[in-house]
């Protein structure tokens, strides 16, 4: 899996209320509608700044807070190809994999907003083209690679009729 796009940088502890506010997510299952409000409380114009394929780049503890799966789904439907962060909150991390949104643990200290990135998940490396640096990626656990490759947990279940990690 390879992705190419520009970075949108956020700070540490981006929580799920910032990713998609509770006042929207309780109302609808229309993820395209939710996507319009992604990160709204941090940057009211954020949705309009995204070009399909771009990356959200966080610091530590990205996705902390609630268990709302609308968070990774809204990010995905907004056209973001992957989220890069120093660390993720565990429920968000699972939800992202389960819904097929790639999440990449790496040192995001050398990435700024606007930087052009090439993310090679299989190769385990990110190239920051703007700054000319390569950033190594912390590999995903095997179980998660399997779920991601199957296209998310729902597709995994359809394929095997249940969990199949052997």
């Amino acid at each position, binding site marked *: 899996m390879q992705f190419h796009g520009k970075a949108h940088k956020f700070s540490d*502890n981006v929580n799920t209320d910032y990713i998609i506010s509770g006042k929207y997510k309780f109302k609808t299952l229309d993820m395209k509608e939710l996507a319009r409000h992604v990160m709204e409380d941090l940057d009211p114009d954020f949705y309009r700044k995204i070009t399909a394929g771009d990356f959200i780049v966080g610091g530590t503890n990205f996705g902390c807070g609630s268990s709302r799966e609308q968070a990774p789904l809204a990010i995905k439907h907004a056209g973001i190809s992957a989220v890069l962060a120093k660390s993720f909150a*565990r429920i968000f991390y699972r939800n992202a994999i389960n819904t097929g949104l790639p999440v990449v643990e790496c040192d995001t200290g050398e990435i700024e907003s606007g930087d052009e990135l090439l993310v090679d998940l299989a190769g385990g490396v990110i190239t920051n083209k703007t700054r000319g640096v390569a950033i190594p990626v912390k590999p995903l656990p095997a179980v998660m690679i399997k779920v991601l490759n199957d296209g998310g947990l729902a597709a995994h279940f359809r394929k095997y009729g249940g969990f199949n990690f052997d």
Partner: protein
Amino acid sequence: MGQTIIEKILSSHSGKSVQAGEIVVAQVDYIMGQDGTAPLAIQAFNEMGGKAVFDREKVAFVIDHSAPSPNEGVSALHKLMREFAKEKGFRLYDVGEGVCHQLIPESGRVGPGSLVIGADSHTCTYGALNAFSTGVGSTDLAGAIISGRMWFKVPETIKFVCHGVLPAGVYAKDLILYLIGAVTADGATYMAAEYTGEAIRALSQESRFTVANMAIEMGAKAGLMEADEKTFAWLRRFTDHKFAPVPADPDAAYARVLEYDVSALEPQVALPHQVDNVAPLGKVAGTPVQEAVIGTCTNGRLEDLRIAAGILRGRKVHPEVRLIVAPASRRVFLEAIEEGAIRDLVEAGAAVVTPGCGPCVGTHNGVPSDGENVISTANRNFKGRMGNSKAQIFLASPAAVAASALTGRITDPREYF
């Protein structure tokens, strides 16, 4: 080698002895979804090709986050949940029954050694009953509803040993806020927390729920405690089932052991907009507040309402403050009516809303205005959490919220003892 509580529970539910770091597929004893997460889980269930739930007695949906419904979008999702639960034949707790994290323990189906997942991050609350319970997303929930199983990474554990006894006017809420401030919002990410020591043992069972509830605010997967006579006495009110306690082994391996002496702890407050932005209340005493909230899965239990009523009895809420009270469950509401706490609160000027989440998550029941300050007994103060990103939320104990509602300023509750 010995095992932590969570290693033992994941061992008993996966049929092999496991240690931190391993990945297991484990049986789950109970599964819960609420109205913010269940609709997506129904969608995932259908996508997975699900037909039936694995065990009708072990699944429940709760309508608590936006209950009663504030608009037609929410109403449609509630209807979807009701129809799904009816068709599959499992329990749905409807509007007015209470917050999921009060109802599931009250159902008597969760106790020492249980493994519970809920599509709500504060599912960690039942760790106070010596259970491993954790929050998951909607797709994980759907997978478990179909198969009765879920995969887990066995986490390492941080042990918090709390020595001493909390002083008067200082509560479980102050204790957990203090611990979160100390370890920060991601201090326990990917790990479990075990809370122990004489200060924890001295807490009532209700107070222990407050501590376990906020484990997620330090990033933890679970917040566990050992079971004792108080745990079993509490459970006996709801079930005859005999649960066997699951203690940690003395030689269990911990990622860290942190020791605190809480005998001189002061009332604490989490300042906007992060839960780990904790300070002694004195530092912000006098800050004006326009809204005060008592309730939520953190502090909406009988003990909490009783403490608030004790301070508000015979007094009046400040004319420029709205005090909103949401009992954690219908049972709590009725008990608080019977013992007079609700009368005291209402006479003082409180607006009592439907048992459930109340204004906690910004969907209804008291969205603050721009620039307003709210003091709340909830567990999260993120910007926009209560539905307005231009409001500030301060988190504190029920006593501190009640005292602040009286004066219109953040106030040390010990002034009212």
